[in-house]
């Protein structure tokens, strides 16, 4: 019963039109249909946070979001947070400064989550950062540097 549906998605300020099966998640739409591979597929089951994107400014898991659910919403991915001139977002710069990664696979999700965490006002202390970033796992264990990067970015915000 393969039927496709037509969707128009607003991603990083640009409109994309695509035809997908209804079961296609936002994550697979980004990676497989739109070649926006900055968003990573980790567990694909809502447990690791690697696929974190923003929908209307809120951080969500794109692996548990159907592409069909986000028509008309503003989607932001890791490709969309640096300035037009290529200058890194302050959170990206802080991650580089603090070496807040090892293999780097969780990093786009960590950064998208951190940008929202700071905007929500949930980055007031190391303890609060650890709690509100707990949905982003880092199997290399770069947590101490991640917390330091988020804290510095929050202090500069």
């Amino acid at each position, binding site marked *: 019963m393969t039927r496709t549906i037509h969707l128009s998605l607003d991603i990083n300020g640009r409109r994309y039109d695509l035809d997908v099966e209804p079961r296609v998640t936002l994550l697979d739409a980004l990676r497989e249909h739109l070649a926006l591979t900055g968003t990573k597929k980790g567990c694909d089951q809502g447990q690791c946070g690697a696929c974190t994107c923003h929908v209307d400014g809120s951080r969500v898991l794109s692996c548990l979001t159907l592409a069909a659910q986000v028509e008309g919403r503003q989607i932001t991915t890791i490709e969309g947070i640096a300035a037009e001139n290529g200058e890194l977002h302050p959170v990206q710069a802080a991650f580089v400064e603090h070496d807040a990664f090892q293999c780097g696979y969780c990093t786009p999700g960590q950064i998208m989550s951190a940008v929202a965490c700071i905007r929500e006002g949930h980055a007031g202390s190391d303890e609060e950062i*650890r709690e509100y970033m707990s949905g982003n796992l880092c199997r290399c264990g770069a947590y101490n540097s991640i917390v330091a990067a988020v804290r510095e970015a929050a202090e500069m915000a």
Partner: protein
Amino acid sequence: MRDFSYLRASSADEARQAALQAGSVLLAGGTTLLDLAKCGVMEPETVIDITYLSGLGGIEVDANGARIGALAKMGEVADHAGIRAAFPAVSESLSLAASAQLRNMATIGGNLLQRTRCSYFREPDVFPACHKRNPGSGCSAMGGITRNHAVLGTSDTCIASYPGDLAVALIAFDAVVELGGRTVSVDDFFLLPGNTPERETVLKRGEMITAITVPASAAARNSTYLKVRDRQSYEFAAASAAVGLEFEADGRTVRDLRVALGGVATKPWRARAVEQALIGTVLSPETVEAASRLAMDGAVSHGANHYKIELAPRVVARAILKVGGLA
């Protein structure tokens, strides 16, 4: 994940009508449905997207209580100033659950309907036997790894625990689910497994949760949600307690006490025996600890979950002592 057809509902009535069809399922936050569709536990033929509906996401709090629309997000309710002031246990139960991302997605109606985390239920390819998934097929959990399974409300067919936190706080304060045409207390909304573990709630085909109401009370205003778990964050409860307390005018005799447990039972579990033992008394650590043990009346362990019978009363006692100002 098997493919399905997709219907974007333009009204609640349209959604309910479409949901009458066998094989149809409502989609709200998607955090349970898509997860279980990927596991192969749910294989819907039609997904009815209700997230574009308006008017179902409001949060209202006044002197009589709160009314929370079914499509309000967990995070919105957790952070709502009125909820935090009048129902701290409800707010805390939400902010201690899941992750920030999931709380931005999952809705209040969907939160009630989350399914058990029983690992045998969640892996049909590896464990075909599951009375909840496939009635009559057996139970792989019994005799298996049971650390996270229930000790209260179990039956010969199912020991899967209800994983949610919010519903625990809601039953402590007599919350009610609105189902469009009728209302049901949250406590009665959930069913014991008995011989029909596949039936988890009284929700009928074609019904939809539209809102949850919680009556205001002094006990709800002085309440807490204590959650003990294997990790500090982003983990389901090993044992949890929602507790609310009101003193008489003397400031020391218990007038009203509410106690509910999570992580230990097959449904959100109200511990009325604990409440009755302490109402009308003056609290002391000793009486609270003794009364809290009543929460485990009828508890049955299945191997590795035995620790819950020791842990849960301590969680209850700690929560009571906290809201009673004794800890």
